[in-house]
């Protein structure tokens, strides 16, 4: 009985050391020291679920390319992917694992503003760099000490673009309707700034998006006699609002977020309700060489904006590590603007080329697939292109990318 037991334990120990050995194998094979670890924290499930998997794969594809070209700082990079479930609580648990267990230098790809807001403090406390695609203004207002950048234009920038577009279309009386969202207030302020600069007037109405009908709200909108209405809501409430405005006989311009007035909305309402409606969305820079490289790299014809942004994030982080000569989160924080916006830098559109130039001691300036990728001190991007579309004959038609 005793003997059997001892034998069994030996077997067990032998087998487990073999197993352990095999997981450690890759680092022996590289024989270049420990790999540098980078985490992706994207929503693989939940409302961000359509985007997260592609984002994580894109990061892996970029890293594979860099590893094939010899890695960075003489080391390979290892990507560890976790799921934030589009849920702050799950996001925090996954971030804890990435930071405490895997000891990653950087986390890329947090999508929902709520998740980013929850995860960011863990990152700056542990000196881990965080790159996000979330849009809420409040995120870069956090005391992140430089450990956070985002590639998504914030609502200040988006509000300004809406206002400028309305003014450029000749609107003098612009009305903003929106449900209660974290960004409705700042968006309206920035619309007003742009419209008033062009000599126009604005007014706004914040509605309760849980109501089945908005007749009285629409009456209030119509009393302002607007010649342009900007919709700040999501698809379900914007659908109802558009129908009510049509019934009320509104004839002016309509401008909405592209995520609200999308193909599904256009298909679900009678054509005349949404005809002529403009949509605005932050746009990838589709004519950039970085964008074309990305399309080839992941084999997706028109990657979504978040995939495009996460591609830029991983390229920037890898180059920042090379420029700093160190792979820590602090090194990335200190060096990221040196590779994203060096005034005298050679323009590059991918990390592999960038790493070569950095090795030769030359400064680089990354021009990304999502845009120029220049960051303010707070961590916001300073400019971005926007995509303007209009519903014409029941189809969303591209007007311009500017």
């Amino acid at each position, binding site marked *: 009985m005793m003997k059997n037991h001892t034998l069994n334990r030996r077997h067990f120990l032998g087998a487990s050391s073999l197993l352990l050995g095999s997981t450690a194998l890759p680092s022996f094979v590289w024989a270049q020291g420990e790999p540098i670890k980078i985490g992706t924290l994207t929503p693989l499930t939940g409302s961000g679920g359509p985007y997260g998997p592609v984002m994580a794969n894109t990061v892996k594809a970029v890293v594979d390319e860099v590893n094939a070209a010899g890695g960075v700082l003489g080391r390979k990079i290892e990507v560890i992917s976790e799921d934030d479930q589009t849920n702050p609580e799950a996001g925090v648990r996954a971030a804890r694992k990435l930071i405490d267990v895997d000891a990653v230098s950087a986390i890329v790809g947090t999508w929902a503003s709520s998740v980013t807001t929850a995860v960011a403090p863990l990152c700056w406390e542990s000196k881990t760099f965080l790159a996000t695609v979330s849009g809420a203004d409040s995120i870069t207002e956090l005391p992140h000490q430089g450990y956070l950048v985002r590639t998504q234009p914030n609502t200040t920038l988006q509000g300004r673009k809406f206002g400028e577009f309305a003014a450029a279309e000749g609107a003098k009386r612009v009305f903003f309707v929106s449900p209660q969202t974290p960004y409705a207030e700042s968006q309206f302020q920035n619309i007003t700034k742009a419209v008033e600069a062009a000599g126009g007037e604005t007014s706004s109405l914040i509605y*309760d998006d849980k109501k089945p*009908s908005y007749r009285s709200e629409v009456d209030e909108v119509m009393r302002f006699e607007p010649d342009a209405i900007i919709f700040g809501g999501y698809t379900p409430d914007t659908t109802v609002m558009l129908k009510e405005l*049509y019934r009320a006989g509104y004839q002016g311009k309509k401008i909405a977020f592209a995520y609200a007035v999308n193909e599904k909305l256009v298909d679900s309402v009678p054509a005349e309700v949404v005809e002529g409606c403009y949509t605005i969305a932050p746009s990838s820079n589709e004519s950039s060489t970085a964008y074309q490289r990305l399309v080839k790299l992941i084999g997706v014809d028109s990657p979504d904006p978040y995939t495009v942004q996460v591609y830029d994030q991983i390229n920037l982080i890898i180059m920042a590590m090379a420029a700093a000569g160190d792979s820590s989160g602090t090194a990335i924080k200190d060096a990221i603007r040196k590779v994203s916006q060096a005034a005298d830098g050679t323009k590059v559109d991918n990390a592999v080329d960038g790493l070569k130039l950095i090795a030769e001691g030359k400064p680089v300036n990354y021009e990304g697939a999502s845009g120029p990728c220049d960051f303010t001190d707070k961590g916001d991007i300073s400019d971005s292109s926007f995509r303007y579309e209009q519903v014409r004959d029941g189809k969303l038609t591209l007007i311009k990318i500017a």
Partner: protein
Amino acid sequence: MTILLQALLNGVMNGALIAVPAIGFTAIFAVLRYPNFAIAAYATIGAFAAWWVNVHFGAGILPALLIAFAVAGCVGVSAEETALKPLRGAGALTVAIGSIALNTVLENVVRLFFGNDLRGYDLPLVPDWRFMGLRVGPQQLQSLFFAVVIMGAVFAFLRYTRFGKAMRAVADNPDLARLKGIEPAHIAVMTIFLGAGLAGIGGVLIGLDASIDPMLGFRVLLTVFAAAVLGGLGSIPGAVAGALAIGIAEECALLVVPATYRSAVGFAAILLVLTVRPRGFFGERAN
């Protein structure tokens, strides 16, 4: 003045839409003595059933309403028999909580088949009519008309048919009704069918006004519940009065408070009425 009249008009229209599912809710409460929150899912199911026959078979609004009534009613009865009936012995609160769970399950079954996308009925959208500075939509008028006809039919059913009288008898005094030879189990099934079916019709009317998605019923559930409570739980005329009162209060309040507080206004009205009159407008007994 015109503004106030317009708000009143809008309130009546909205209230009439809420009244139909509120009757269903209160009828179930009257007979079975528990609040059935699954009527949100029955409204959604009714809306989707009507959408299905409207888009795929070109059914007009009237047949679509009948289909919605039948489908929501049948789903209601089978869900009640399988999920909620076994809980009845454990008390009203248990059944009410069970109905919340049932609502979530049914809503997700709808999601499984139809997805989360927004849908609209394949019916033309007509601009509003205007008169004396007021505007009124032909579609809203049509919905109002249907709502009134359906309410009339329900009243007639309860007043003049054997089943209706039996239902009222059970609601009034279940023990006495049993002594008189009324089988409560049959009445319960009938009531659930009627209640769920009315919720289904309400779903269609709301969907006509807005759009259809799996959350349709859930979005109006609180208002429906509030209308029933305000009118006095278990009283059918009360549900109608409560729905109209909530609709009018919400719309008129928009003239003075920001639209974000619309729901809050409805509930403030309930608080006020129930403080003064705990059994609601027409409630016979205060629980």
